[in-house]
């Protein structure tokens, strides 16, 4: 597994670095905006801009698989003393780690902003961040198995997901659900636990499906 992770890391070192720098800049812009007099809105927990780099996370395994296909690493890796499940695992782990890094940056920027404006750093903020991280991983869990079928399948799955999520979000934002009560649902520890369990189960299931797909594939 270690060799697979190393290969993926060396391959996408630049991409991850760019993603991190862009995230930092977008979050930093948020901090700067506040320093220049923007108000901290009551329900805004994170910068909208900070979400954009995160949208690339679910396609990270697809990008890695595409590079592997182009370079021939899939074949080279399969001939090495490494299990195919390790190849799959490295994609999941790298996505998870990249997601963790980005969410940590958003959290740190949020905490700094709140400290600057003497706002309370309450549990709600962290609940929101945790919910965001879990939803992001649900995205990844949905898209990743498709990248082991093929790049086209993965991109199609991601596009469908974006359309579904986009239209659901529009309905959700327009509906009465998105009010104080709707948000309070996220701040409930039971909701958080349910979301965590669902994410963990679906992530594991996605991992297993991907291994199953990749295990018997001719490379």
């Amino acid at each position, binding site marked *: 597994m*270690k*060799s697979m992770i*190393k*290969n993926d890391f*060396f*391959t996408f070192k630049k991409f991850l670095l760019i993603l991190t720098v862009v995230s930092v800049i977008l979050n930093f812009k948020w901090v700067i905006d506040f320093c220049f007099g923007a108000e901290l809105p009551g329900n805004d927990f994170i910068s909208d801009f900070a979400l954009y780099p995160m949208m690339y996370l679910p396609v990270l395994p697809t990008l890695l698989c595409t*590079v592997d296909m182009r*370079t*021939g*690493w899939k*074949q*080279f890796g*399969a*001939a*090495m*003393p*490494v*299990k195919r499940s390790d190849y799959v695992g490295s994609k999941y782990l790298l996505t998870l780690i990249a997601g963790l890094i980005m969410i940590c940056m958003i959290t740190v920027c949020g905490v700094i902003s709140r400290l600057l404006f003497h706002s309370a750093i309450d549990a709600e903020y962290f609940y929101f961040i945790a919910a965001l991280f879990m939803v992001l991983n649900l995205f990844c869990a949905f898209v990743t198995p498709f990248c082991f079928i093929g790049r086209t399948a993965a991109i199609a799955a991601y596009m469908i997901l974006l359309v579904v999520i986009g239209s659901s979000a529009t309905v959700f934002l327009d509906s009465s659900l998105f009010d104080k009560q709707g948000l309070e649902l996220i701040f409930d520890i039971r909701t958080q636990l349910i979301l965590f369990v669902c994410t963990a189960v679906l992530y594991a299931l996605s991992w297993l499906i991907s291994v199953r797909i990749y295990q*018997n*594939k*001719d*490379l």
Partner: protein
Amino acid sequence: MNAVEVKNLTKYYRGFTLDHISFSLPGGCIMGLIGENGAGKSTIIKLLLGIIRKDEGSISLFGRGESGRQHLLKDEVGFVLDELKLNCEFRAKNINNIMSSAYRHWNSETFYGLLDKMNIPVSKRIKAMSRGMKMKVGIAIAMSHNAKLLILDEATGGLDPVVRDEVVDMLYEFTRDEEHSVLISSHIVSDLEKLCDYIAFLHHGKLVLCEEKDRLMEQYGMIHCTEKQLSELDCSAVIGKKSNQYGAEAIVRRDAVPKGLDIGPTDIEKLFVFMNRGNHNEEYDKK
């Protein structure tokens, strides 16, 4: 003990079937896989390396059959594919880093030593290397983890004669240890002739023959005669023939040819070419 043992290995593709291939490579020997383009050489190598899955048959490496821990056996297998299938942005240190995590017996000193011996600059990215350099890196990887078996797929293809000769020398060096075996496929039959103890000849997905090279030389020979003399020979004696207005030449089985006919020696390259041509001539003759 056999380094490789393959029984009834079969792989079905649309338009091509690797058809029940069986052979074994004894430990300490070099076997060459010869065949025309699309004969199934690379398919066999990919099956042995686990890159593609077999449809039927069995593969056993070092006497150990298939099990859930098959990947561990690959620790003892070095391989060189037709291209160096690594990210072109990588440098030697990246490769060393990755391989040291993959192979239990990876030796960084050996790796860098081999690169140095082959004049490969350590700081050079793969994308800046020539085909010959890439192949040398591939060979250095294959030889840096104390592998007992080397599997090479067209490793000498596209290399200039000087580099090819160096590669052949390196393989010689490798097989000095009696535990080391090599399975190599190549179009360049002259390289295989220099190297191999055994020759496996593939044609249209079928294993036509698999013999010791010296025995092949003993069994087959070349005759130069007239068309009439050739037509008088037993069909089973003629492996392949070529004729023109000046006469005919054919590869024949020595034991099936009447005594008195002058049979000259042949080489693997001629055997390979004539075996490939054999069927075409028959079709031509029928017309």
